[in-house]
């Protein structure tokens, strides 16, 4: 390959393949990769969540006492922060795909995106805040 053609063209490698061209990367690649990774993680987290609460603990034994016991374990709080973060960000990115696919007017797209982003991010912040600051004593005092 002649020298003047090295940029921005990815250099071909003999025997197949090429080098990553300059300028390739960016948000859309990241978002596509994030959807696949977060989807896989969510399968594991959501399955564990479902199996634990519905089969191991059992819905009939589910009360505030169980929640309080679980909450005292920092791992459980970390688990739930991960679950709500991945679930909401995965859903938000999916909603972004749909908005970009089906809302053609640039103005309407900005408005709908702003509303959806705000709703999801406020929900996420509220969820994480509750998980980290929940105080069992308040709950017990209210009984």
């Amino acid at each position, binding site marked *: *390959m*002649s020298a003047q*053609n090295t940029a*921005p*063209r*990815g*250099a*071909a*490698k*003999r*025997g*197949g*393949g*090429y*080098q*990553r*061209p*300059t*300028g*390739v*990367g*960016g948000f*859309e*690649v990241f*978002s*596509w*990769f994030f959807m696949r990774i977060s989807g896989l993680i969510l399968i594991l987290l959501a399955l564990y969540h479902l199996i634990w609460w519905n089969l191991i603990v059992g819905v009939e034994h589910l009360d505030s006492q169980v929640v309080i016991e679980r909450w005292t374990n920092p791992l459980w709080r970390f688990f739930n922060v991960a679950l709500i973060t991945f679930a909401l960000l995965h859903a938000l990115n999916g909603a972004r*795909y749909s908005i*970009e*696919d*089906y809302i*053609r007017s640039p103005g309407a797209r900005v408005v709908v995106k702003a509303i959806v982003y705000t709703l999801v991010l406020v929900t996420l912040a509220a969820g994480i805040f509750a998980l980290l600051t929940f105080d069992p004593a308040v709950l017990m005092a209210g009984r």
Partner: protein
Amino acid sequence: MPTVKLRVQRFNPDVDREPRYSEYSVEAEPTDRVLDALNSIKWYKDGTVTYRRSCAHGVCGSDAMRINGVNRLACKVLIRDVGNEITVEPLLGFRVVKDLVVDMEPFFAQYRSVLPFLVNEDPTPDRERRQSIANQERYDDTTKCILCGACTGACPSFWADENFVGPAAIVNAHRFIFDDRDHAAGERLARLNAREGVWRCRTIFNCTEACPREIKITQAIGEVKRAILYGGVTS
């Protein structure tokens, strides 16, 4: 000879505001093709029915249309495979020029944007540019594309956004990106990494189902996505 009923979507831009349907009954053998039935209409019943066809043998790709709701080549589909009541409509997602003829120019503009030709500025060798069988197999599937537009016309992402590069253009980019004799993979990947490039693909698989050449289109698009992500392919 059995009678086949055809319901053909019509649109004459000089007269019609909206598409309408005309119904015809023609005699056709079960082993005739839908194109034969359309030809019977055009040649013996109604010469105004308009559609594209050229080679009539599944090679030129000019008679892709919706047959009973599915994108097919009229010259490859037998009457016995679609029944005796057949609805024929133009491809979705394209502007209808007349009846079954759609404006393919946006499709070919997207095709041209991915540099669908070999780029190699090395000195021209005395003989051909040799390639191993294994390296050729890497992109063999995507060489089969005949640019009929059945895939792009079946793609919901394309219906929603006509600026989406579309499966056919990605297939033809794949054909050269994974060709080790080619030197412009980076330019093609940069084009496909744009906002209207491969990332608009939602992995719906309509293109793969629609392809009359049975190209594994969704897989090819996935390979292009991974090539952008990882920045490297091996043959």
